[in-house]
């Protein structure tokens, strides 16, 4: 594995290996006062963010620092990007400085793929437009694995703005790869065409517009953020109406089986996508997701940056 650009880059073995590594890393750091491993000493990781982010960026930075990599943060605001530098020139600049790995978040779908073709550093896609966000999918899978044991045959319901969501796209791909049955629930306006085929031939995705009917048979529910910044037009009449149809209220959460956790990639719009009481209930795995995010990103950095350079990895 040279880059991590999409959840589809990961076959079941590679994904499982990454998740196992994340668990081991968590274990290696558990109960220690000093959160520091020497593993990536002397490697340079740049986080290049063209979109706002709290958790993804902090998570990558912490992951790199806990493994002793040097982490440099570059954001579009306050950099040469604001002066009009192209993505390609910025990429070459970072490459020329000896960067070993670039973590890229960019509003344009496919930007991470483009960058991987331009530079010699490894590239990790930390979200490209409404396309992919593979490390989010990994941390969701890690969280579900912890809560449910295994994903094989589990029914995972993803709810909300599927159309604009890179979390949903990567999530469906990875969860299907790991053997889960994915069900998407959204208003018709927020479902892209061809969504039934996202899971591949072996695990077709089912689609529904009725959240109440979908919840009782779900082993887990993943709420999505409504991406207002990507919406140009009226996708639903009002926030209130969205909440009535697709928000996870307390009454709705009670329809879930007792073992089913609730996930949300954050930042969450409380009261609209998810009720306060649900977000703070024992069912909620939201803080677990954030915690697992650090370990999963450590695992990704470890897999990309340690080991022999010339290795091309198993065909993923």
């Amino acid at each position, binding site marked *: 594995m040279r880059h991590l650009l999409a959840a589809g880059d990961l076959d079941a073995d590679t994904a499982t290996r990454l998740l196992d590594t994340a668990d*081991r*890393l968590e274990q290696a750091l558990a109960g*220690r006062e000093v959160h520091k491993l020497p*593993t990536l000493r002397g490697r340079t990781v740049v986080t290049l963010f063209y979109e706002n982010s709290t958790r993804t960026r902090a998570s990558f930075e912490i992951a790199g620092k806990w493994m002793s990599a040097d982490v440099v943060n570059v954001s579009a605001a306050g950099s040469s990007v604001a002066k009009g530098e192209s993505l390609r020139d910025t990429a070459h600049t970072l490459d020329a400085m000896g960067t070993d790995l670039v973590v890229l978040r960019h509003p344009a779908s496919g930007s991470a793929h483009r960058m991987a073709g331009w530079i010699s550093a490894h590239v990790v896609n930390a979200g490209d437009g409404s396309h992919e966000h593979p490390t989010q999918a990994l941390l969701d899978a890690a969280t579900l694995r912890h809560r449910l044991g295994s994903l094989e045959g589990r029914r995972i319901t993803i709810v909300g703005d599927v159309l604009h969501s890179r979390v949903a796209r990567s999530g469906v791909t990875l969860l299907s790869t790991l053997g889960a049955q994915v069900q998407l629930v959204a208003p018709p306006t927020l479902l892209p065409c061809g969504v039934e085929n996202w899971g591949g031939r072996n695990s077709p995705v089912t689609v529904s517009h009725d959240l109440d009917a979908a919840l009782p048979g779900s082993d887990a529910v993943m709420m999505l953020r409504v991406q207002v910044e990507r919406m140009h037009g009226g996708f639903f009449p009002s926030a209130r109406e969205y909440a009535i149809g697709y928000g996870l209220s307390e009454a709705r959460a009670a329809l879930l089986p007792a073992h089913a956790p609730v996930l949300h990639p954050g930042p969450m719009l409380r009261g609209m996508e998810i009720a306060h009481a649900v977000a703070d209930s024992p069912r909620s795995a939201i803080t677990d997701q954030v915690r697992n995010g650090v370990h999963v990103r450590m695992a990704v950095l470890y897999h990309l940056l*340690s*080991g*022999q350079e010339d290795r091309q990895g198993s065909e993923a």
Partner: protein
Amino acid sequence: MRRERGSAVTSRPGTAEQRELLTAADVARTVVRMAHQIIERTAPDAVVLLGIPSRGVPLAHRLAERIREFTGTSTAVGTLDITLYRDDLRRRPNRPLAETMLPEGGLDDALVVLVDDVLYSGRTVRAALDALREYGRPRAVQLAVLVDRGHRELPIRADYVGKNLPTARDEEIAVLLTETDGTDSVIIRRAGS
């Protein structure tokens, strides 16, 4: 070229290129002797046996079992994965991580005995010492190995050695244990055979 320590082999003892140096009975006897030595040299201190994955772990458990048999007291056993502390991470294909499990009481002020199957260059032990430092401050650290095959690259020696086996660098020592390989045996063979 250095070969993987004690890598598992599909063993065919008796073929021209490989020889069995220790039989199952020899391994059992050796573990018993090492357990006695550990008791003699550490009593009355509380000992923590820390196995280095993969084959140091079953060895640590066997030693603890023998010690319990001989003294009636139980010994704390843990495992310490040293992969993240290796100095050759970038010279080999990516390595999977193994489990790290420390005993309840931690390592502070304990007498830690690191347990591994083969002592060769000493680099694994150096990595283990680095890793140990992150987990606590033992009163002292000792090293127990089933086989010492020589060729040290660092100033490290073992406190308990099951068997000294002089080897050439191009030979490979494979320690097989029932828990990981289905049989107890120590085999020597030409690298690449």
